[in-house]
């Protein structure tokens, strides 16, 4: 059955957005990412104008991440305090990032810089996560002896420095103690990059929480969804208010799938180990990286496109 989308000004078979929502919602529930890096290009492929695709996706993520946060919260996997501190940082970072884009655009060649940053970030994050989770899976297989002796020695200069910062706070749910400045600064860093690249930043936030904040993977997923929820509320409102690009009907079709997908993802996620989750996410990030590299190097079928999107 086809429905007409009033803002996208196109007609779509309802099975497409519901199916896409289900798949991307599943990823949200599993890995704590918004999935915009998959959803937006897929929507464009199905004939949705790029600006509408991005704006509507953020509306849809509000629903998927509410569903996912709720599911993770029920099993005690959301660290609200940590999420809140990351949000403060992310908000400030977003403001700086928006200015950053303006400067980049004024300098010219902005698209080149943005695309390159995006590919590099995806590549580095994906590779690092892949190698790290592979190693920890091997270690786990060998037994705990090695890791028991190794972990106390591992306290590096960076860790020492982080411990010397003021405002040391204990994050109960995550079972870690950090200066409150750490999540704020790193949240800000992700916020800047996300704003510049025009993406939600879940794929950056998750590794920051795992490797820098040392949070357990399952709490990372829940907390990431919590802060994605707030980011996407803000983005949806701004898109609707200033750009008039949110297609409500399309968002409803997407969220029909994604809210359910997020619940299913959460259930699946609890059956997997942290390392397994990390390595699958790493593979997805690497596949997306390769896909973008192909897009950049193969001759596109059309040399003209709508103005306004990425």
């Amino acid at each position: 059955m086809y429905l007409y989308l009033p803002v996208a000004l196109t007609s779509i078979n309802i099975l497409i957005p519901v199916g896409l929502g289900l798949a991307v919602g599943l990823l949200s529930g599993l890995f704590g990412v918004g999935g915009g890096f998959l959803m937006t290009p897929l929507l464009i492929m199905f004939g949705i104008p790029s600006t509408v695709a991005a704006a509507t996706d953020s509306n849809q993520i509000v629903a998927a991440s509410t569903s996912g946060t709720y599911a993770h919260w029920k099993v005690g996997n959301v660290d609200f305090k940590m999420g809140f501190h990351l949000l403060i940082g992310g908000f400030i970072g977003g403001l700086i990032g928006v200015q950053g884009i303006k400067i980049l655009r004024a300098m010219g060649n902005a698209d080149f810089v943005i695309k390159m940053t995006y590919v590099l970030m995806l590549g580095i994050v994906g590779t690092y996560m892949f190698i790290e989770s592979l190693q920890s899976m091997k270690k786990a297989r060998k037994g705990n002896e090695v890791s028991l002796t190794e972990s106390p020695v591992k306290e590096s200069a960076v860790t020492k420095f982080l411990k010397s910062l003021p405002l040391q706070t204990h994050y109960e749910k995550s079972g870690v103690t950090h200066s409150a400045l750490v999540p704020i600064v790193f949240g800000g860093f992700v916020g800047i990059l996300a704003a510049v690249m025009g993406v939600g930043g879940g794929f950056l936030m998750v590794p920051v929480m795992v490797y820098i904040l040392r949070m357990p993977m399952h709490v990372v997923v829940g907390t990431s969804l919590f802060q994605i929820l707030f980011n996407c509320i803000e983005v949806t409102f701004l898109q609707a208010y200033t750009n008039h690009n949110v297609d409500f009907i399309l968002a409803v079709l997407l969220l029909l799938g994604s809210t359910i997908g997020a619940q299913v993802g959460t259930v699946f996620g609890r059956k997997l180990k942290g390392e397994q989750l990390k390595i699958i996410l790493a593979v997805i990030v690497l596949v997306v990286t390769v896909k973008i590299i192909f897009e950049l190097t193969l001759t596109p079928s059309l040399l003209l496109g709508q103005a306004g999107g990425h």
Partner: protein
Amino acid sequence: MRNSKLKAKRSKILSLFYFLNLAFFGLFMPQDEAFAELTMDANHSHIKIDFFYHGSTMSVRGTADPGVDLIIKLTSPDGHEVLKQKGKIAGLLWMNVGSLNAEHVPGIYFLHSTKKIEDILSAEDMERYVIGYPALAKHIQMSPVANEEEKTKWFNEFVRFKEDSRLYSTSTGKISLTEKDGKGNYYILTEWPYQVPPGTYTVTAYAVKDRRVVETAQSSITVEQVGVVKTFADMAKNNGALYGIISIVAALGAGFGVGLIFRKGGGAH
């Protein structure tokens, strides 16, 4: 992208056209071939876009002098479009390198003819009535283009982009011509793609003889959003803040709702 002043002007001109059509049902052009009688009737002069709209069909029929060839053009008033240009950076990577400004661009351009246009119409008349892609290429102004070669390249890319969006198309031989009682009847049934946005469009039939346009007849088509579709589109455009809040609240509600259903349904962990 759209200029409201231009729009108002356009709709004024178009309503005038429409009025003239109603009055004469077929506009006669001052041509020497006398007595011809070209009429036109488009079956769908008012297309309504509702929730279940998935495009429409459009049939145009009328009478014409026997022995003429016919060209039917469906188009919209000229406008201005800005498109992103992709190009190679550092000889390796494809990305957006700039934007292409195009003036005097019809939003849609569907052209049907009984025979190949170059075989039935002189270059002069093609240009005069903007019939065919070569004539359109001269009609549309593009910038920045350094030379003719570049202009041709980008015009071809432009047509490919429009054809891909199903907003431009051409066909030959789809118009059927029959003769009855010394009168010619023509008929064409074409698809009206759902990608065509709301607006007012013009259908023009050209009767062609001896490589010249001898007559034209015109009619207009209005494509309009109605009902729920119109309500949402208007609200998104005119009341963005409220629209945004409703979208967010609905998404939050759906997320919580599904969460609750799963808790009840799922029960045990």
